[in-house]
């Protein structure tokens, strides 16, 4: 694949509570930053895809809140409900279909405006499950236990993900929670649901991200440095936890394999220089690394201990600080993509990974990583 590139990125800072900003204000900020980054005006945007979630936003037709601020009032526009990586996928197809030369993609949430436990409880089946009162945290805690039981990954290894990512966030001025913490700090923090301590969990945050996708002909027409889309794929697992093996991520394995194949990557562990993964919880970074073939099955914890995934290591993961340092749901995956773009352009400032040429970004939809979208991006055409 060499027909499309990301030519502009923009995002707000990630905060616990953007009390001054409505959804539209956040979109306005992110979209203008992306346009400035690309050296474009809104007239250069041929169509718009926004990404939002009605439950999180507390309004049905949640796209109505950001359409105007995204410049969509007199353009072709649509809305994906799901993580930003899925919105970007749809935005890409609207360019590859030949209908539009450029697509502006946005994704937003204001986690501060809702009670996340109730929002994610609503993902459970209303007849068989919802009244039990589980939410994303208890569900993922159950998955963490299954993963640790199968692979022997320890609580200490999970804690090291938190230490690494909060530490990385110190170099990212947009992150919400830059912190100097130790493994002991994580293990002493409040146990929310076994085995997940408070510092094993991401916060729920406010932010908006925007990216601009262009076809091959338009990619060089503006001043933004293009980063090429080499591969993209997404798959969903079964819905009921009891239909799945929670200790694995089969839909992610498939999505990653397909994205690598599109990109011509045969040995991802060697050929991927930088990764931004969906670390909503510490165990997820390890589980997703293994499922994506970026290390051996069950090995991620040990390799983390050896420093392989630190910024100076073999494969830096979440140099930006990841979601543990700030988790605006829905925008989350799009921000992963934007962070990989920064790395491949050499624009990641204090958290730049040296010589990054090929990167992978991943987004998640649904409970316990039911559905995954994987993007492979490249510096060179």
């Amino acid at each position, binding site marked *: 694949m060499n027909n499309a590139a990301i030519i502009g990125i923009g995002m707000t800072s990630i905060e616990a509570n953007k009390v001054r900003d409505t959804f539209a204000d956040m979109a306005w900020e992110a979209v203008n930053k992306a346009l400035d980054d690309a050296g474009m005006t809104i007239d250069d945007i041929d169509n718009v895809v926004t990404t939002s979630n009605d439950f999180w936003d507390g309004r049905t037709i949640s796209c109505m809140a950001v359409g105007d601020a995204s410049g969509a009032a007199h353009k072709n526009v649509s809305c994906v409900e799901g993580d930003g990586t899925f919105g970007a996928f749809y935005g890409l197809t609207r360019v590859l279909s030949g209908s539009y030369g450029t697509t502006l993609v946005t994704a937003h949430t204001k986690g501060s405006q809702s009670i996340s436990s109730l929002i994610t409880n609503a993902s459970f089946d209303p007849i068989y499950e919802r009244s039990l009162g589980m939410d994303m945290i208890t569900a993922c805690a159950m998955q963490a236990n299954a993963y640790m039981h199968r692979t022997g990954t320890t609580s200490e290894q999970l804690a090291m993900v938190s230490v690494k990512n909060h530490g990385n966030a110190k170099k990212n*001025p947009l992150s919400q929670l830059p912190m100097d913490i130790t493994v002991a700090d994580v293990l002493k923090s409040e146990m929310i*649901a076994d085995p997940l301590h408070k510092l094993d969990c991401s916060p729920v945050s406010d932010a908006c991200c925007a990216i601009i996708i262009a076809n091959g002909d338009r990619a060089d027409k503006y001043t933004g440095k293009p980063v090429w889309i080499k591969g993209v794929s997404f798959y969903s697992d079964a819905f009921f936890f009891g239909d799945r093996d929670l200790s694995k991520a089969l839909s992610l394995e498939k999505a990653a394999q397909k994205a690598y194949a599109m990109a011509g990557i045969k040995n991802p562990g060697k050929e991927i220089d930088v990764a931004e993964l969906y670390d909503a919880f510490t165990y997820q970074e390890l589980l997703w690394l293994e499922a994506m073939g970026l290390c051996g099955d069950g090995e991620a914890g040990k390799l983390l201990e050896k420093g392989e995934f630190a910024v100076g290591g073999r494969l830096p993961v979440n140099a930006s600080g990841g979601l543990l340092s700030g988790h605006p749901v829905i925008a989350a995956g799009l921000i992963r993509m934007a962070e990989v773009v920064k790395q491949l352009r050499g624009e990641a400032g204090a958290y730049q990974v040296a010589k990054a040429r090929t990167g992978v970004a991943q987004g998640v939809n649904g409970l316990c990583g039911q559905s995954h979208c994987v993007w492979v991006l490249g510096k060179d055409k």
Partner: protein
Amino acid sequence: MKNNEKTALDQGFENIEPMVFESKISVPYSWWAGETATHFLKSLRDDKKILALKCSKCGKTFVPPRKVCPACFVKNTDWVELSGQGTLQSFTVARRQLAAIQKKVPVIYGLIKLDGADTAMLHYLEGIAPEKIKIGMRVEAQFAADRNGTIQDIEFFRPV
């Protein structure tokens, strides 16, 4: 527009304290269980029996029951009665009183694969100290005294 630059607009609003509007969406729901779920729930309520539904093509046995086999895409027609005993696939102990949890914490959630079923179901675990729970342990369903045709006609699962 760089991160640190303030626009003229920002400067004008600097001394204005943002207002917050508290509200709530109240949309009542009545979910149709459908015939398949109704049959399962009635069996819990009236007979204290857990049923599963088996695909006639691939033989996969589903709890919760599925009207159509997701793989074969044919209607499942064979109801199977299960013993109510099973094996624990995974669990968690909720310690913080998260908003969705209606019971008082600590609350133990389990993923239980019932004997005779190929899939597992979510429910509560009780009658065991959290430290003693082991993935792979044997559990069995405890039915509630008051049953109304919901998944909570099973009150919880407890160690065998």
